[in-house]
């Protein structure tokens, strides 16, 4: 009863807030008008019209389609930028040698650069090999993809990958890495897709605690951690317990490692425990992922 009341209050607050936003827009426009020229008045009016247009776009599902098409179009640019910066890292020592203008140093640096390049290639090779081995090891058919961008906002946690519907990626596919679960595909374009990470508050995953087989629901929290809710009160869950997917529903296959429990607690007024989970994979440094087909 109390929770319902709380929800109603929050909804009312949200509506009030929207109204305040409208009042703020108009008062801000009035405030801005005090010191602006006619030209700027026009700009503000144009912006007001654009605001209205955006509100219309907000409720149209076409926005989503347009969004992924734009991401698709810019995928080659993002991939190019990634390779360009990678190349810059390798070329830097060579440029330093050129400044010294010495043949000997030039040769030394060339060799150094080659050694560094080899090291970088070795690293990449090892990473891809482990991904390949892992791909062979897991009992699912999967599509490997490269991470080409991350969510620009602090609000949602997502990744942009370089594979889309032309490579067989579909929405709701589970995304994993060599260390565990990463998230699920929510938008697909032809040559790029967006995956919602497990640290996003809008993602829900059914989980099992490996040691005691207790279930729960995993959701993201602000700050890049995950929270498990609906753990029964009599559960002996403790920090250090490994957590894996439960395999409920059709999105996430059973038995994929998600992470380790860091803290267990009980929320006031709720009939279940909660746990804070640290993902097994540092999601901010992911470079390659696998999208599970089945």
């Amino acid at each position, binding site marked *: 009863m109390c929770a319902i009341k709380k929800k109603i209050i929050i909804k009312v607050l949200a509506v009030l807030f*929207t109204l305040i936003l409208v009042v703020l827009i108009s008062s801000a426009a009035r405030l801005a008008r005090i010191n602006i020229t006619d030209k700027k008045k026009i700009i503000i009016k144009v912006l007001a019209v654009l605001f209205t247009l*955006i509100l219309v776009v907000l409720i149209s599902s076409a926005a989503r389609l347009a969004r992924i098409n734009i991401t698709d179009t810019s995928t080659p640019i*993002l991939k190019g930028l990634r390779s360009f910066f990678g190349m810059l890292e390798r070329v830097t020592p060579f440029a330093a040698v050129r400044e010294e203008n010495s043949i000997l140093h030039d040769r030394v640096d060339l060799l150094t650069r080659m050694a560094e390049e080899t090291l970088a290639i070795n690293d990449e090779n090892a990473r891809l090999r482990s991904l390949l081995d892992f791909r062979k090891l897991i009992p699912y058919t999967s599509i490997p993809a490269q991470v080409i961008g991350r969510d620009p906002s602090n609000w949602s946690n997502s990744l942009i990958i370089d594979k889309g519907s032309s490579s067989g990626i579909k929405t709701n596919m589970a995304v994993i890495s060599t260390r565990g679960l990463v998230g699920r595909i929510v938008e697909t374009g032809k040559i790029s897709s967006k995956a919602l990470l497990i640290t996003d508050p809008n993602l829900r995953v059914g989980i099992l605690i490996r040691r005691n087989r207790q279930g729960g629901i995993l959701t993201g929290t602000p700050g890049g951690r995950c929270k498990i809710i609906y753990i029964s009160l009599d559960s002996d869950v403790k920090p250090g317990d490994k957590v894996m997917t439960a395999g409920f529903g059709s999105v996430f296959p059973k038995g994929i490692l998600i992470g380790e429990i860091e803290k267990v607690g009980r929320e006031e007024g709720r009939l279940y425990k909660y746990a804070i989970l640290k993902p097994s994979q540092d999601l901010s440094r992911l470079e390659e992922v696998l999208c599970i087909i089945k």
Partner: protein
Amino acid sequence: MYNKINRVTLYTILITAFLIQLLFLDHIKLAGVKPDLLVLLVVFFAIFFGPGIGAEAGFVSGLLKDTYSLDIFGANIILLSLTGLVVGGLSPKLFKESKLTQGLLVFASSALYMVSHYFVSLSVLKIEYVTLQDYLYRLILPSSLYTAMLSILLFPVLIKRYRLKENAEYL
């Protein structure tokens, strides 16, 4: 009255900042949060170039954010444009060249923008398990603080680059 800026320069700066945010900013995450370069720039343009340019910078930044993120489409456009408009409207009343004012303004704008975002999301999405308090302490305040700290480093560089001066009539 306000400083002037070339549109090409404005959009180049915004798109460069956006690409940095998209490609590299996750590598400098602290306590799970990253600074928001776009909010920082919107506040900068609003302070020194007025509400029109502030709102325009907010609109472009919001559009870029909304296009590449999985956020509610339109939320960032509206909120960032509004941020630019309000900060730009307030700027004549402020001593813009004080680093403290700049830092505080970036912190307050970022925090208000994110709190507003929470309420917008609440009215559109179903956020049941994360409260405003969670967002406030784990995301909004740390991220705003990080952005404000970054502004202390970046504002002098941008001011020097564009040779911006406080207009005497506001002093």
